[in-house]
């Protein structure tokens, strides 16, 4: 495993950074929020990103994608993360399409992946429930089989881009109880399934999220995704890969907020000198820099381990997520403190980073949760 960008990845990173600067400045996030945009991101940009090949990076060539790796997608996500781009990479590319690609039948892949790669279809994954916190297996939503197919009872929370998804991958219980891994099954539920109700949720980061109510929803037999009762493993695989991708986004955002803060330290004058000349702030900036550098190493290792199907991948994902959670939250908090009063105002962009930092931190497990998982994976 080489912890260095390939020439192709350098080029991809540059293209993505230029694109983000030109088409997706952070001011866009404010505009979408202020007008309470019905889509929450830009369909036109999403189409362009698909044409650039980014949406289909992970999708095999046979299904219209580029068949590339997570290490390639990571440089795009990092660049877009710098400007908090809200386009549906997490919901569609990392969660929904990965669940279909890794666990779906040939028919399911043919039905969904080419449309995703083309930027036409959106998918998502509904895993979290009220009270489940970060335990992927703590699922109470039930799927019961009858002669016609499956019938669901339950509710999922904070499902990304739920109100726009053409289909939702739902993690439900077909057996077992509580936090049992056995008895979890994934289903591919079309958005137009009778009875499916999505209510948009407003979170601090203004990104799309929704409550998904499944009471009485019926789907045919073919909606089963992967193995009956054996979905926990698939769910964990998909979520680990998505977490690594989310880490790349977090790394980009943390780097940007740090760059902005440094710029401010160099230009803001108090007591007749730039405040960046004060040692109290220099040392904090230097320590923050170290945290971000270590986060970068962990992310690079995690995405490369994913592509190499390295057995250490889950541990490295936990390493990356713990580091990125801490580094991003710290970068945002330090940024606000160092900007001073204006950092608290809605007019400055810092608040957007701070809010995104908390949402990203609590997606798929915060730092403490991932440290505990690391311990578990290492036998203590």
């Amino acid at each position, binding site marked *: 495993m080489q912890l260095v960008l390939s020439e192709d990845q350098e080029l991809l990173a540059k293209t993505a950074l230029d694109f983000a600067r030109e088409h997706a400045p952070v001011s866009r996030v404010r505009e979408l929020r202020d007008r309470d945009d019905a889509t929450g991101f830009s369909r036109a940009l999403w189409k362009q990103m698909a044409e650039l090949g980014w949406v289909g990076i992970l999708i095999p060539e046979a299904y219209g994608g580029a068949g590339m790796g997570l290490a390639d997608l990571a440089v795009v996500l990092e660049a877009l993360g710098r400007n908090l781009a809200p386009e549906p990479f997490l919901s569609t590319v990392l969660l929904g399409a990965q669940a279909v690609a890794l666990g779906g039948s040939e028919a399911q892949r043919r039905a969904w992946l080419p449309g995703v790669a083309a930027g036409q279809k959106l998918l998502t994954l509904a895993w979290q429930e009220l009270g489940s916190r970060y335990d992927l297996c703590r699922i109470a939503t039930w799927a019961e089989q009858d002669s016609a197919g499956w019938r669901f009872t339950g509710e999922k929370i904070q499902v990304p881009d739920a109100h726009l998804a053409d289909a939702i991958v739902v993690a439900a219980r077909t057996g077992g109880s509580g936090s049992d891994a056995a008895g979890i099954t994934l289903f591919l539920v079309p958005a137009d399934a009778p009875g499916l109700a999505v209510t948009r949720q407003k979170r601090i980061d203004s990104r799309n999220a929704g409550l998904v109510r499944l009471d009485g929803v019926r789907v045919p037999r073919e909606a089963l995704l992967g193995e009956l009762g054996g979905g926990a493993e698939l769910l964990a695989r998909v979520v680990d890969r998505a977490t690594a991708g989310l880490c790349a986004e977090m790394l980009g955002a943390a780097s940007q907020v740090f760059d902005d803060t440094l710029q401010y330290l160099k230009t803001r004058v108090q007591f007749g000198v730039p405040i960046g000349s004060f040692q109290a702030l220099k040392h904090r900036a230097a320590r923050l820099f170290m945290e971000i550098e270590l986060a970068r190493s962990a992310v690079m290792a995690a995405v490369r381990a994913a592509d190499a199907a390295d057995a250490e991948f889950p541990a490295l994902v936990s390493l990356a997520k713990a580091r990125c959670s801490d580094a991003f939250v710290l970068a945002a908090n330090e940024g606000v403190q160092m900007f001073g009063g204006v950092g608290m105002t809605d007019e400055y962009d810092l608040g957007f980073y701070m809010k995104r930092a908390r949402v990203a931190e609590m997606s798929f497990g915060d730092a403490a949760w991932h440290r*505990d998982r*690391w311990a578990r994976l290492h036998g203590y």
Partner: protein
Amino acid sequence: MPDPESFRQDLRRWLEANAPKSLVGAPGTELDGTWGGRKASYPDPDRKRWLDVCAERGFTAPEWPKAYGGGGLAREEAKALRQELARAKLPPPLIGFGLTMIGPVLLQFGSEEQKREHLTRICRGEIRWCQGYSEPGAGSDLAGLQTRAVLEGDHYRINGQKIWTSYADLADWMFLLVRTDPNAKKQEGITFILMDMETPGVSVKPIKLISGSSPFCETFISDARVPARNVVGRVNGGWTVAKALLAHERTMIADAFGAAQGTGKRRSLSDWAREYVDCEDGRLADAALRQRTAQVEMDARAFLLTTQRARDAAKAGHAPGPESSIFKVYGTELNQRRMELLVSIAGPQALGWEGAGFDDRELDLTRQWLRSRGNSIEGGTSEVQLNIIAKRVLGLPD
């Protein structure tokens, strides 16, 4: 350069024929490696034999020019040599500050005469070196040093005191910084000079630390006469040489801490924890301790990955990135956190100084913990390192 594979085959044959079998698996660390020098004793004659055969081939300093006793090997060949030594489980034939600190500086700044005189003797393990930098009044503010050197004909008369001189009591020569112009701006009146420790007027006193005995010494210099030709670089231009050497020193320290994270030789924190604290269902029962353990183990892994990233970038031909500036401060503080945690884990068994009721490993842990508190001071305090990162990497104003 010969074909790499045949070069490697030749190395293997040479090692097979020349390496003493008794040294296979023998350690080569700071404590038990071969330092050489006039005062060296060789209880195991094979150590001396190994040093001599390697010196003969230039293998004690593989990348130095042959003219100065080195091996004249290309970087890849030297790497192959290190790999073959590791593969054969052989200790390095020679270690010390001659090879890691003063040698590289002489190659860069030394006169032809100095290179011929000193590098050759370093390669043969004849002279052991020590570093005369810090003074009682010049620690972090190294450039404030006061040891005076006054030119008298073709000699300098030196008066002053050096402190934290590692292994001064065992060294034959010292490279030191002296003030040659007390009226210049402090960085501009400093000269880098080489001094034989047997020069009359030089005396050494070991320093005992909170952790017990240590390699550190105080060196007192009273009217020592040192030939003017021993000046390295320009008179009053010693600060440039000094900084180049500090870079070598910090790389060495960072390598040492980086390498320590990666070896499987150390017992893992979780192994210690399982021995000293309760487990439930195979997990550490104390969730707070489990978090702290995972935190340090994960930080160590992220640090190791960062050192790997720097190496991979260098291999790919990139200039050293900003990440390498963090190694000294992060590596040393990480080691301190690790030792603090081990003390918490061992609990009352970490409190022994010597004697009954504590096993060797526990006593060693206690001493290592106490010693580790110096890691963030020696070789540039964390605070000075953070200033350097803020200025050089982040571009923050003075």
